């Protein structure tokens, strides 16, 4: 296991440094360095392949996290400020820093329609009883006001190395920004690059719900910056989670 090798190498390095230190110290006759045997370490690694199933909704860089309590969102509850950030602006940093997160990994960049990205996340523990039990993922549909999709607290505790779980995801509305579809409110390319992202004001129902889809100017919302191309239906992502270590 890589982690054990790393730990051993680190221990060896520390020993050498301490010996060197001891050798240069003229006052001490001899220094005995006791290096405890390394604890066994257990690393859990999950490879997640995310595929964007939409026609014209780029997905913001994903937030992929391991945790063993809580969830990133709950229908009927207020969105956390971290989730609001992700859902309104596509910024995953606050979700990755949520207190429940044992280990988090951000995506490399936007996942364009039809494209896939592979993201790995790992967590190392010294006690197998502290293994991560849940995996969550969130990403914004960037040509919307505050739509996001992802996986919420997927149970991974029974997933053996080499086993996979495949699923598709539905889209949610963080409830923190009214779905005006105005150009000034869409952070994705449909907003022309000047649309606002995060705004702390909450002017929608302030509860997470499933998303009702975008209307678009082509389908009767004259002020909308969106076109028929930005409409989407569920599901919006295909996800495969494989435990690789």
């Amino acid at each position: 296991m890589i982690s054990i090798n790393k730990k051993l190498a680190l221990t060896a390095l520390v020993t050498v440094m301490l010996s060197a230190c001891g050798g240069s110290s003229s006052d001490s006759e001899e220094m005995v360095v006791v290096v405890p045997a390394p604890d066994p370490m257990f690393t859990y690694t999950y490879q997640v392949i995310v595929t964007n199933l939409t026609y014209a909704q780029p997905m913001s860089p994903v937030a992929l996290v391991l945790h063993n309590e809580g969830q990133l969102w709950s229908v009927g509850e207020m969105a956390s400020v971290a989730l609001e950030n992700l859902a309104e602006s596509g910024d995953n940093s606050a979700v990755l820093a949520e207190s429940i997160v044992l280990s988090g990994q951000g995506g490399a960049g936007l996942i364009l329609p039809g494209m896939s990205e592979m993201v790995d996340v790992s967590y190392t523990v010294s006690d197998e009883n502290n293994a991560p039990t849940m995996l969550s993922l969130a990403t914004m549909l960037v040509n919307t006001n505050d739509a996001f999709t992802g996986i919420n607290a997927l149970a991974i505790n029974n997933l053996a190395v080499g086993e996979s779980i495949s699923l598709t995801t539905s889209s949610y509305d963080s409830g923190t920004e009214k779905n005006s579809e105005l150009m000034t409110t869409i952070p994705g390319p449909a907003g022309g690059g000047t649309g606002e992202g995060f705004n702390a004001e909450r002017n929608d129902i302030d509860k997470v719900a499933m998303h009702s889809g975008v209307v678009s100017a082509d389908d009767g919302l004259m002020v909308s910056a969106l076109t028929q191309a930005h409409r989407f239906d569920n599901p919006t992502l295909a996800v495969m989670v494989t435990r690789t270590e």
Partner: protein
Amino acid sequence: MNTLLSNAVKKTTKIKNTALFLSTALLMSTSALTQAQELDIKVTNLTQGIHFTPILIAAHDGDTQLFKSGEMASSELQMMAEGGDISGLSTMLTTADKAENPAMGLLAPTMSTETMLSTADGNMYLSVVAMMLPTNDGFIGLNSWKIPTEAGMYTFTVNAYDAGTEANDEMITGGGAPGAAGIPAAPGMNAGTGGTGVTMTEDNAYVHIHRGSLGDDDLAGGKSDLDNTVHRWLNPVARITVTVK
């Protein structure tokens, strides 16, 4: 038989917990044929802008169906889908175990309601229906889900159906009686007036998956009295969690 099973249980306790679990499941599935089941049932409205009228939950035998896709709605289903009146369906269910109106009225967007249900011999299938407001004859529908005999928590989502009994004119007229045109009420935000009607015909007279509401961006006119940024939805529209005790 009892001695045999208890011997089996005794044996398995010595071997493995998982084996014990399996024989417990076997015991339960055997007893389920002769004993009632106790269920906790939770229904969550996943939509952002649609209310559910009183919900009817029923455990029934394999010959009973509240509705069936591709067949014409019964007059009792029509009463429920057009006006939210579940009394007809309830009366029809003579041998079923029922939970009527667990939310004590409307179930607002993103809200949940919970109820208990004791099922009798042979009532092995679960069905759930409730009208969706504001729609002409849209309803949430679960048809004959086989209730598991193994204890545990089971979660699934359900879709929106159209009873096929009324034209989806999307005009909020108060028309809730079977055969009366129009939508009885829009309990949430943004009910419009003065719409000219989206369509005056219902060409598919069979129960089918609802195509969704159209709405418009003119609350004082246009074709529809619905708001296209508030009263649309995507499937699924409800989540049901059944705990088999």
